[in-house]
């Protein structure tokens, strides 16, 4: 997964403050947290000498763009629908003690993760422990994925 330092290396590193943030490092953190976008950095977009960096950054940011609000990225090509994440997710278990908790598919519509058409799908993001400012860095779903098909930004 992309780290802040890797993103920082692709910024202009001039701390010009044109994006509204004090440093390029702060901009890199904001990019990773999906608070800013690559085109919020005017020098990177306008100046020709940063063209190579811009293209690399766009490419590196592409998977993060598709992440949910909690930062969950699902690689559909790697997922084989085993449902480990569905059953391991503590929120699924608490909301569905007779379904997901016992290894079955979710029996109500409160589930965060479900398997649809053989691939895991993220629903009800606001229920996730990683949602909102007071998030808990739970990783029950990613840690139990045998094919590394899901990860957090």
């Amino acid at each position, binding site marked *: 997964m992309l780290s802040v330092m890797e993103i920082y290396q692709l910024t202009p590193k001039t701390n010009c403050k044109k994006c509204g943030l004090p440093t390029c490092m702060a901009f890199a953190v904001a990019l990773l947290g999906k608070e800013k976008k690559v085109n919020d950095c005017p020098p990177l977009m306008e100046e020709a000498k940063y063209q190579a960096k811009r293209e690399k950054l766009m490419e590196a940011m592409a998977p993060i763009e598709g992440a949910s609000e909690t930062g969950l990225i699902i690689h559909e090509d790697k997922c084989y629908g*085993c*449902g*480990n994440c569905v059953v*391991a997710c503590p929120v699924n*278990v608490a909301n569905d*003690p007779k379904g997901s908790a016992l*290894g079955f598919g979710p029996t109500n519509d409160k589930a965060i993760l479900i398997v649809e058409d*053989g691939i895991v799908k993220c629903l009800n993001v606001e229920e996730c422990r990683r949602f909102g400012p007071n998030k808990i860095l739970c990783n029950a779903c990613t840690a*139990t994925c045998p*094919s590394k098909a899901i990860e957090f930004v």
Partner: protein
Amino acid sequence: MMAICTGCSLLCEDIEVDFNEGKISTTKNLCRKGLGRYRSMYTERAIPRIDGREAGLDDAISRAAGLLKEAKRPLLFGWSNSTLEAQSAGLDLAQKLGAVIDDTSSFCQGELLEMVLKGELPSCTLDDVRNYADMIFYWGSDPSNSHPRHMSRFSYYPRGEKRQRGYDEDRRAYAIDVRLSPTASMMKEGFFKVAPGGDASFMESMLAALGGKIPRLQDKKKVIAMVNAMKRAEFGAIFPGLGLAYSMKGRMDILKRLVDGLNETSKFSVIPMVGHFNMRGFNQMLFEKTGFINRVSFADGVEHGPEESIIDASKSCDAALVIGSDPISALPGGLARSLAKIPTIVIDPHRTLTSELAQVTIPSALSGMEAGGSALRMDGVRIEFEPIVPENDLLPDLEILKRIAEAV
């Protein structure tokens, strides 16, 4: 609507299927393997053929009956993808014809399953594993690939009656394999890598540790710690896969010794990781009828032996009926050559390499989707299912076998 998946021997019962204009639109809770099975309803379907040319279904069935009638020593092979009802009809047909009958277990989990059915190895149901197991062993098996929902439905992740905290604190899992498989990568510290064919020596090491000696192989402290934990386990389950079945062929007494040794202080059960959805059904049915689980000849009473397995029987038999299996693509070339020499009849929902080479191909309905019936899950629990697409013009295996039996 709710459905049962016949993609592997877990026979998942919580599948939700939605239809749009007669075709499956979305499915829920189905793993990718099961989804492949459901989607296969619309691709590569077999058509009735005689000698490579398209023919009517009735002609194909009567030709098949004719070929079996003429044969002195027919071979009936396959069965692992048929319902219990079809398998029973197949057994009756084999007895009527005096045929050789064998299924895929003769080169799969047969040896282990035989020990389980004979009561030599203790076994339990998967629901027991979910409710009580605190130690789980995947030995030479990789359920992430072979039975994707095994870990999430029954063994490691779900909460059970006595295991409310699931994998977090209540269960420990170990994987013993020749490589770090996706399943083994989930076990973190519980993975032991053995050399190909080295399962028996590793098992001896565990036996040594069990007897209070120092094990010779692997990380000695790790093995001793594992065996000590096994001795204290409340309920353990071992899931041997094909890796173990092939590596320890003919030497399964070591596994029996290990399980017996462990059962002096704790409770361990063995559930073989059966592949096809109803292989155990066939083995159990034949075992109840004849005392053998596979490789049986009805030519002169009941004979059993390696010479009745498909590998040897295809050389001595003069006709073959292959149902729900594709031996030519699954088994070595020598077998393909000997099968190609004798008249072959294939009953299968799909086109396979075997059906392409067969004299007669009879298309059948897909069990679980287009045909109902019942099957035995890998732990021997009987699961019944209804068709989800009942309106189709395909005959189920049972009907085809009945019509062949009538015509013979």
